[in-house]
């Protein structure tokens, strides 16, 4: 296993450097085999205390190669490439979700209008759900143990007592009706409310939690009602707010600029004008004629738009490899315009 460990460490370091991020200082790498599940478990321990782990099924070629020194040496480049590309995407999503929550906290502190905070919160919830479903990313959500089971209702009520000095009441009221637990946490931090001591939950809080759970679908409905028609939203400002979700932060500055130049040269004049104004552009599906809006970014950046200009759903697909945002958006545009069916067949809907 020492050879497996050595190669895993080298590959991962190289990958993170290629991604244009500071490689985390690797303290240790552990590769173990779980007989019961027939999985390899690879864990990376970073010097800053974070642990970064993933599992590999024995049935996979990577797993088989790990068992055999000679086989390991013969592993295919493609297997390794796919594995680490996936790992890199998961890493980016986790990072960007953290950034988004930090941004929400900052915005709440700065008194951003409630509809913007709620919209951003909705976006965070979507990204989190997507990351959990397709990337196995927990994204920093606290484990549901007894001490963290203090309720949103209780926490928000607590904010209600203390928020007046720093948080506009309209913001609070809007958030109170729509926020999910993570945003409530962020909001609590933003207004500097200390955590409540651990205690048992009350029957009233159980009822509150249940009511809020039932209200969740209405949040989704509300997000669909956002008016995305040109001019209805200041997309430049909106894009700035959503930058943490752009997933565009890979590659060097030079590579990113080169990718954007290529994108600009392939956009139609209308698309280019829209992109320069809004950092997003519309394309028509080559088969169905449906309208899609590609926002600046690498992942989760495609919205399907209905005839009234409202968001129907999101689509997520991208070319393999650590391509810069400009390249990814261009590939998405060409795929939707020329081979919509095939593109959506591989895409994840959110």
């Amino acid at each position, binding site marked *: 296993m020492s050879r497996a460990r050595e190669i895993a460490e080298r590959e991962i370091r190289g990958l993170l450097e*290629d991604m244009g991020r500071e490689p985390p200082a690797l303290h240790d790498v552990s590769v173990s085999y779980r007989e019961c599940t027939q999985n390899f478990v690879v864990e990376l321990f970073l010097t800053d205390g974070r642990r970064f782990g993933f599992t590999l099924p024995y049935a996979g070629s990577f797993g088989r190669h790990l068992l055999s020194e000679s086989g390991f040496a013969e592993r295919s480049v493609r297997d390794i490439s796919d594995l680490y590309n996936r790992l890199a*995407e998961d890493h980016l999503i986790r990072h960007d979700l953290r950034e988004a929550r930090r941004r929400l906290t900052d915005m709440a502190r700065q008194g951003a209008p409630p509809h913007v905070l709620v919209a951003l919160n909705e976006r965070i919830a979507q990204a989190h759900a997507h990351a959990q479903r*397709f990337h196995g990313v927990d994204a920093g959500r606290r484990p549901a143990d007894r001490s963290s089971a203090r309720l949103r209702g209780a926490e928000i009520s607590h904010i209600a007592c203390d928020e007046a000095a720093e948080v506009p009441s309209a913001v609070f009221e809007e958030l109170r009706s729509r926020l999910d637990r993570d945003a409530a946490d962020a909001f609590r931090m933003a207004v500097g409310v200390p955590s409540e001591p651990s205690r048992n939950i009350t029957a009233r809080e159980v009822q509150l939690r249940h009511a809020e759970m039932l209200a969740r679908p209405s949040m989704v409905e509300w997000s669909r009602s956002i008016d995305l028609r040109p001019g209805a939203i200041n997309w430049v400002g909106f894009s700035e707010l959503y930058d943490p979700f752009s997933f565009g932060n*890979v*590659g*060097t500055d*030079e*590579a*990113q*600029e*080169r*990718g954007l*130049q*290529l994108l600009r*040269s*392939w*956009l*139609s*004049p209308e698309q*280019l004008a829209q992109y320069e104004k809004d950092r997003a552009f519309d394309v028509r599906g080559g088969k169905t004629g449906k309208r899609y809006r590609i926002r600046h970014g*690498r*992942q*989760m950046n495609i919205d399907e738009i209905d005839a009234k200009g409202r968001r129907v759903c999101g689509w*997520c*697909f*991208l*070319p*393999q*490899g*650590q*391509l*810069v945002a*400009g*390249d990814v958006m*261009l*590939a998405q*545009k*060409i*795929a939707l*315009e*020329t*081979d919509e069916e*095939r*593109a959506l067949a*591989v*895409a*994840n809907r959110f």
Partner: protein
Amino acid sequence: MPVHLVMDHTGDTRHEFDAADAKAIGEAEARFQELTGLGFTAATRAAPGATPKVVRSFDPTAEETLFYPRLVGG
């Protein structure tokens, strides 16, 4: 001069070739076959700003051919 644009982590890599040079065309065709065999999609366009078109076979007269890697769900 015709050019092949291959998307990669640097943004893109460009391979220009002389459409009048049989050897250069052979190399360009080999590149086309290799990339599409690896799962890359090749696209061309009639003019700047025009709607792109996916091509399945090598066209030595295309001014620009863009290659992007296989698409995956994100």
